[in-house]
């Protein structure tokens, strides 16, 4: 089950809107597919991201995967704890494994993302 209150991308990021900001991470499905996550690289605060732009990298023991911005915005904060404990992306991807906080450029972009049931359909059987 994926959290009902979040929005999702086909690239397996989630986003949670909080006022004019939003929090971004990757889904449990993505974390499970990657396996043991051992490295997360995130942008510096202040960077402007276009929607769908690569904002960082997550690496498991075996694989390197790009992270894509679900929406456009300016990075206001990143989860610095992931440098020392990247494994929380596996154990708590929707909580302590969050990655970015961004100031939204265009709230309407959020409405264009997948809702929980659409995302569940996307990953069903996968």
């Amino acid at each position, binding site marked *: 089950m994926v959290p009902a209150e979040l929005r999702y991308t086909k690239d397996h990021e989630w986003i949670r809107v909080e006022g004019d900001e939003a929090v971004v991470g990757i889904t449990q499905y993505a974390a499970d597919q990657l396996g043991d996550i*051992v*490295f997360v690289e995130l942008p510096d605060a202040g960077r402007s991201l276009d929607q769908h732009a690569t904002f960082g990298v997550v690496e498991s023991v075996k694989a390197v995967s790009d992270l894509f911005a679900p929406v456009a915005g300016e990075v206001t904060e990143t989860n610095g704890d992931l440098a020392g404990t990247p494994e929380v992306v596996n154990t708590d991807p929707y909580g302590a494994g969050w990655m970015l906080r961004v100031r939204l450029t265009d709230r309407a972009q959020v409405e264009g993302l997948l809702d929980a049931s659409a995302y569940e359909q996307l990953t069903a059987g996968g």
Partner: protein
Amino acid sequence: MTEPEPIAPTPTPLLERHEALGAKIVEYAGWLMPIQYAGILEEHRAVRSAAGLFDLSHMGELVVEGPEAGAALAGALVTDPPSLAVGRAHYSMICAPDGGILDDLIVYRLADNRFMVVANASNAKVVSDALAERLVGFKAVLDDRSLATGLVAVQGPRSLEILGPLTDLDLEAIRYYGVAEGDVVGVHAQVARTGYTGEDGFELFVDAKSAGEVWDRVLEAGRPHGMVPVGLGARDTLRLEAGMPLYGNELDRRTNPYQAGLGRVVKLGKAGDFVGRTALEKVAKDGVDRRLVGLALRERGIARHGYPVLDRAGPTGVVTSGTMSPTLGEAIAMAYVAPAHAEPGTMLAVEIRGAPVAAEVVPLPFYTRPT
């Protein structure tokens, strides 16, 4: 007539068991094999601290038999198999006439006139074909037992106490790189004290039809000791920590043994010609143009296969394997660099996503088991 290409991958004889254990299955070297069960890190740590059980049935087992089997192999490989005592094994390579590596191998002397050559799955056919060709004119025959053989490996510090009660063999009498014939869980096996993890352990060569029985019984006996099934993912991180080369990464057709730091394997002093001798003698005399080294990253990042290695002037080499070392907690890699940079302590950089990340040349292996 051209030979038809294989269409479907060959399932390991243990495929159903892996699926029942929740393994993620991948196609690897033409086989369906388990890449991980509970997770690479957990499996890796179990092998370092207790024991792991591996299905290696994809490996190639090539039996060479006959009164001239040893002589034939001495001409085909860079090592000198006739120098092996019965019940002993050594690491070897088969090279092309230009000295390029066709595969790295373990050669076991099972009897006076019988040797088993174990090849990588990805090269089993290349090695089988090359051996068949190189045996011509010798009183020796090649029997490719790859499909008929199941291979189950027990690796880790608790291997001996797990396997000991399951066999009539005196396992302590089998030294490192020794091999003996006996029964394991009532199944006839060649039991070799070899492996690819940097730990103590045994490899059990059995009839493919009996591999399931061996797998089940050894896993059942090993569970109380902390043994878990281990997939190819952790096999790769384990061998990398142990500084062992992987064909396709550190070794390939364009690489000779001296570049790979394995010149000691090549027995130029043996009598008689062997394939690659002239080319390898020249390399031994003239030196190499690049050398395999260990790298430890000194800034944040993980070096991966194919990433460029830089010195102050620019590119000096390429990463062949890299990972975050589960045991050491730091990013490690193997790479080819210019010989001038091969000395431990040399500071280089790995280009990761366009940016240089500091890396220090360190001695191999990265990990040595506590004694």
